[in-house]
């Protein structure tokens, strides 16, 4: 509409510069078309790690075939697979996996709530941050397994001990992720927000929250990794009939039984659960976030 009005005033230069502008727009945005999803996801993201795992399994099998160590020290992939199948019920693996995953998720969920509340309350208060940040960094570098004996002395071999260890492991990551996210907000966004009229709650909702999201999600991702690690450390040590089966407990049991193939099998299960939850929940969210902002290739 505006173009038509202006056209009537000065037809010649107007037409010239609009076509010039259209040409620039076309030249500067003529990117390649987006690849089909199966090439983006399947070929670029899924096939390479599977191939790498295949190569690892192959090397493992070759080492076993070469018999550099006896089978009871280094069992082969086939031995581990057979042992897992044979001993699955004996080790109560169904319950173990269910218990561990639910403990991990509950512990992680509590950590997210607590970590987020702490992060939000200290991120914008310099004095509080200066006070709390070194403690958080220290906690993050402290191996959470160190809390297990203390937890057992406090609470006995109970879920309380397990959750204490998980929370102390995961909360610092969530909080630090949030604080880093706040630090990384380009100041220009808050200035623009203010100029547009976003203050207080509006500023938090429309500017701060979306700006913080990438840092926060990567903090959550790390928080999950810490939750899972801490949980395994706790379960490995805190073994008791009261607590019931868990993947960590299964690992301890395999150790007690001197069952090398089963120990390898449980190790693989721990890996698969940790990686799987990351791949199913966090990786897609993070990928979408970064891609929509032009921060990731593909």
């Amino acid at each position: 509409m505006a173009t038509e009005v202006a056209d009537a005033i000065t037809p010649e230069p107007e037409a010239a510069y609009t076509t010039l502008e259209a040409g620039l727009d076309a030249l500067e945005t003529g990117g390649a078309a987006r690849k089909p999803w199966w090439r983006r996801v399947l070929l670029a993201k899924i096939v390479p790690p599977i191939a790498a795992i295949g190569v690892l399994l192959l090397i493992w099998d070759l080492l076993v075939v070469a018999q550099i160590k006896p089978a009871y020290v280094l069992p082969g992939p086939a031995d581990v697979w057979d042992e897992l199948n044979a001993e699955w019920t004996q080790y109560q693996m169904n319950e173990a996996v269910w218990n561990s995953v639910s403990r991990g998720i509950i512990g992680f969920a509590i950590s997210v709530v607590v970590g987020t509340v702490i992060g939000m309350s200290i991120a914008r208060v310099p004095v509080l941050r200066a006070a709390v940040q070194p403690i958080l960094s220290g906690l993050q570098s402290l191996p959470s397994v160190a809390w297990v004996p203390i937890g057992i002395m406090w609470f006995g071999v109970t879920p309380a001990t397990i959750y204490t260890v998980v929370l102390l492991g995961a909360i610092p990551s969530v909080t630090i992720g949030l604080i880093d996210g706040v630090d990384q907000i380009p100041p220009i966004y808050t200035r623009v927000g203010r100029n547009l009229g976003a203050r207080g709650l509006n500023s938090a909702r429309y500017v701060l929250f979306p700006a913080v999201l990438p840092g926060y999600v990567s903090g959550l991702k790390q928080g999950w990794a810490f939750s899972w690690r801490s949980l395994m450390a706790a379960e490995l040590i805190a073994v008791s009939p009261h607590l019931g089966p868990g993947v960590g407990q299964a690992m301890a049991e395999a150790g007690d039984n001197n069952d090398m193939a089963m120990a390898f099998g449980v190790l693989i299960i721990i890996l698969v659960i940790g990686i799987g939850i990351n791949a199913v929940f966090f990786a897609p969210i993070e990928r979408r976030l970064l891609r929509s902002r032009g921060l990731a290739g593909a």
Partner: protein
Amino acid sequence: MTATAAAGGALEATEPAAVRLTGVTKSFDKGGVPVLDGIDLSVAPGEFVCLLGASGCGKSTLLNLVAGLDPASSGTIELPGTGARPGHAALMFQESALFPWLTAGRNIELALKLRGVRGRDERRREAQRLLDIVRLGSAYDKRVHELSGGMRQRVALARSLAQQAGVLLMDEPFAALDAITRDVLHEELVKLWEETQLTVLFVTHNVREAARLGQRIILLSSRPGRIAREWRVEIPQPRRIEDADVTTLTREITAELHKEISRHGN
């Protein structure tokens, strides 16, 4: 052709103004050299004023003060205004500063929402209309990173229009663009200014750009920032950056600017 602000200061206070600064001083550390020192400036409604100066002259600081993002140390800033929202000024930055988590259209919708425009459909229609004005109607659903630098600044311009502020403050908005894109955007901005009767306060360190755009050019001295000289530009629009008149004026102002900068070398 030239006039000093001091001579007209008393008179201008009674004239209608879109932006009026009286004795504005800004220092960031107490006791140090103020960044801005005793700025008296009145911008008439619908006027296009370019603020020119070397780095450190506080021209960006001045815009931030007018936009209300920073408080002045002393003096008064008024935006009596003629637009729909007196007291309000839209600010445009060197980088587009569009929010990267929103599409081009949604960026404008957010500005409308924060202005108080009710109704999702209403906002969508208005955002589309504003994008059409900067000839980016088809880029509504494009992400910011999918747009070129020039297109981003046009979306930012549309977002400024969505604020209906009447006063548009521009902080070197085209400095990061290539020469061809900048030419096109100069043309676009002047067209828009003529059609909408906006009051524009345009900060730049590019003398030729100031001569291409401004009705009035104000040269600021550096450390402290004071109004050193002022030119009223009588060359009619549409001008071109390569016009002889523009070139002559550019030479005159550049000579003055160089003198101003050389003072600091002694």
